[in-house]
């Protein structure tokens, strides 16, 4: 039954992972099995078909479509450069002259006598794919993508903005709401870590310092919307034009980062980290993450304990560490104490399958009880800590 519930954001220390890096569409892979790659190594490239630009010749010249065909000076397949003439019309013994230039570089793909239109296809757009994480190429799928093996520390988040970047980890000890603004001046290019919920002023100050990324415990909805200058209807992010990548490990509001995530990052302070804010919350699809490669290139011949993140995170069982992810225990962590088989009636009156969790006593969540504190919560409201 435990397998019916999905895992949470992973925190993995010194772990061998394999990561697929696929081109957006089939293209050319430029690395080979066994190659060592850095986060900014180009692993391949692909060309995406350029946009088609419609030039309404008949409309521009002021002739019916069929007649406009007589004015066209190009043929299908001709390459053209911006400004080249597509159609030329002379009337009244040459006194009236009209020319239609192409607004873009490209190739003529369509000439329509029905609509009097020419379509110019712009040149293909080249896109390059970077490795993102440091490691060894362990598999190449020709034209499609590669698999990179790496020994690393991985901290996943729950919501982020901004794409893939990298920089040195700097831990801000003050955490909280960063009351001691402004930030230090030597943070250009850094990925900073704070436990609490940064203010908008803090984020803007980070942008001013030129930081590459920021990992925090949580953030207020209004702060992230102001920072990203975007309103989020669904949790699909990553292409925001933000000055640095930002993600949170816990959620929205003022929830401190879990000890597990914070100390995983803190132990690598000063090391390079790859960070991504890309989020797609559908069946836990894509999570924002910070990856710190441990520097020793992984030999593909070397047997390793490689982690399949999905298998690793599935399986609610007695003794496993969990994070509670719903009010009123949001952000607290503990261990599974009991998994009652039959549904129970919870405080709202709903019937749900529950888990009994023994809460961990942390400085952030104080309890008046001196002994262990047990809470019964719906299974849907816990997340496994990997």
């Amino acid at each position, binding site marked *: 039954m435990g397998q019916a519930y999905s895992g949470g954001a992973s925190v993995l220390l010194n772990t061998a992972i394999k990561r697929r890096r696929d081109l957006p569409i089939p293209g050319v892979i430029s690395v080979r099995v066994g190659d060592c790659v850095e986060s900014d190594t180009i692993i391949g490239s692909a060309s995406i078909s350029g946009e088609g630009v*419609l030039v309404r010749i008949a409309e521009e010249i002021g002739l019916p479509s069929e007649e406009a065909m007589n004015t066209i000076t190009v043929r299908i397949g001709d390459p053209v450069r911006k400004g080249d003439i597509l159609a030329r019309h002379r009337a009244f013994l040459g006194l009236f002259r009209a020319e239609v230039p192409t607004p873009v570089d490209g190739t003529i793909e*369509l000439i329509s006598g029905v609509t009097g239109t020419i379509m110019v296809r712009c040149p293909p757009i080249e896109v390059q794919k970077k490795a993102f994480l440091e490691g060894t190429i362990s598999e190449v799928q020709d034209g499609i993508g590669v698999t990179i093996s790496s020994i690393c520390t991985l901290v996943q988040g*729950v919501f982020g903005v901004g794409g893939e970047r990298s920089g040195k980890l700097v831990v801000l000890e003050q955490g909280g709401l960063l009351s001691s603004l402004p930030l230090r001046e030597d943070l250009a290019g850094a990925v900073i870590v704070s436990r609490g919920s940064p203010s908008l002023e803090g984020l803007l100050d980070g942008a001013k310092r030129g930081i590459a990324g920021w990992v925090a415990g949580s953030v207020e*909805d*209004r702060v992230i919307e102001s920072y990203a200058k975007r309103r989020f209807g669904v949790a699909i992010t990553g292409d925001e034009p933000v000055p640095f990548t930002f993600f949170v490990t816990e959620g929205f509001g003022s929830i401190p980062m879990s000890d597990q995530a914070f100390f995983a990052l803190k132990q690598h302070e000063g090391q390079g980290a790859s960070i991504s804010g890309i989020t797609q919350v559908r*069946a836990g699809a894509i999570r924002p993450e910070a990856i710190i490669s441990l520097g020793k290139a992984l030999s593909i011949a070397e047997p390793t304990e490689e982690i399949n993140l999905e298998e690793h995170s599935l399986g609610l069982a007695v003794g496993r560490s969990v994070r509670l992810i*719903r009010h009123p225990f949001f952000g607290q962590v503990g261990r599974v104490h009991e998994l009652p088989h039959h549904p129970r009636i919870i405080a*709202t009156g709903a019937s749900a399958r529950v888990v009994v969790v023994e809460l961990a006593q942390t400085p952030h969540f104080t309890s008046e009880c001196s002994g262990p504190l047990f809470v019964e919560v719906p299974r849907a409201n816990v997340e496994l800590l990997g």
Partner: protein
Amino acid sequence: MIRVVVTDCGSTTTKALMFERDDTGWHFRTRGEAPTTVEQPVADVTVGVRNAFTELEELSSCHFFSRELNPPIETPAKTSRGTDLYLSTSSAGGGLQMMVAGLVGKMTTESAERAALGAGAIVIDSISADDGRSDHERIERIRALKPDIFLLCGGVDGGAVAQVIEAAELLLAAAPRPRFGDSLSLPIIFAGNTLAATEVQRVLAPMGSVTIVDNVRPELERENLAPAREAIHDFFLSHVMSHSPGYRTLMGWTSTPIMPTPLAVGIMVDHFAKRRNIEAIAVDIGGATTDVFSSCINPRNERILTRTVSANLGMSYSIGNVLLEAGIEAIARWLPFVADLDDLKNRIRNKMIRPTTIPQTHDDLWLEQAVCREALRLSFTHHRSLALSVNADDKAKEIGDAFNQGSNDQLISLIRIEAIVGSGGVLSHAPDRAQAALMMIDGFEVEGITQLFVDSVFMLPHLGIFSSVEPAGATQILERDCLIHLGYCIAPIFSCKLPPGTPLGTIIVDSGEGQAFTASEFSVIPLRGETHTLLIEPKGQVDVGAGPGIPLRRQIIGGGCGLIIDCRGRPIRFPPDTESRARRQLQIMNALKIAPDSQEDD
């Protein structure tokens, strides 16, 4: 004994239901569910299906899977093993996502939308020659979205050709790629002016083959949606389903082709309304989308099933869109407590990023139910804008009229709607059925006398596909186990100028003593069990369904929520300040006995 297992692979969860026939007919037995796994990192729908089966096995003590078999589901059913049939519906992975294009937004493009929606699709955008966008903007939009199928329409038969070809040129210029299968070409259906078909095929030849079907709008006054819908359904199975992660395997397990979830729900809603000979509305509010169905009679006495999907309104993945579209103030007005608006927004966002969590405090429950009311309101507004009587006018309609379709063409009159069926987790699994009734009353702003139902455990999609093989069995389960009759709501229509406390009329139940109802009142008359005779005598211009001031007599059946008298007016009026609003909501909840400290009536 015959046993059937049906799964519905939703965007959030996969629900497996077990039906059995014994000497007394067909019954729903039990259900299991698990997160849907169609997307990364699992990217295989069958994992979620197996997990849902696992829960079903635990709860039913039946065993369905066998590693030795291929397909792995044991057939036929024996005492505690296997199933005779395995069926499935699906809306996972965002459902069937389509773009449509036509010439005139209010005519061919709307017909194209109705064809796509009726086939169970989500329309991610509609392109029209008159949509006010430049060619460049339209091309950008088509490129940015990755539809599963493109439906190109435009022009009545024998009408304009050039503009239809221009629409095809836009599509060629954009050259969109399909969502699944990078090496595949995008399926394109042309259902426009037949004179343009050959040229459309020529223009779009570089993109692959174009399927030509009959025009969705052969004449200004006539729609012909069935051929386009059939083509969409064929593509759904051959292109979309078979290339979605894990679906090729799943298709090998099922006894009949997989059906889009909304199509299956639509079948049951139409069946429900026809059997009772009433006009009805149903809603399926899911995690990512909200589907609204109406089965209504047009002025030619034809029954028309309309289905719309609000692709960005839902209770988990899309809950943030409800927040954006409605605004936090509109959501907060339904709460029985005064709340910090920033805190509410954070809570809604946390649901967005952890979509499978459920409320475990009353405050959280009320917040989700407040969001639900707004999602219902917004999606019903969208539905009404598309539920139109195309054939309503006997006179030939000029093109100019078509641009100015007004309220006269609207198919839905709320005061004629006799029943509303609510489905989807937030309604079906509300801890108290009266909460579901109140969400529907508020969200739809029902008028006149309306009977309220909920789908007990969200089984309309399962019954829809089951009805394709065993219609009588589906009907039996619909009536016995699926529809929970909540009660009736009487919402009189009266002038907004009447002050609170103004007498509006009298209600007499079973020839008993008359009970007056007044403006602003919200009260409940408990009516349990059996059939009752209701006589409502409205005063003056007050209308309860028979016309202003005209008495109405109706046989009704008592339900768990009783007879709800809602005299808040339409649109519903709220007290001006937050404290009074919260108190008012608490009074309403107390009337329904759904506030936590409400006392049960002895």
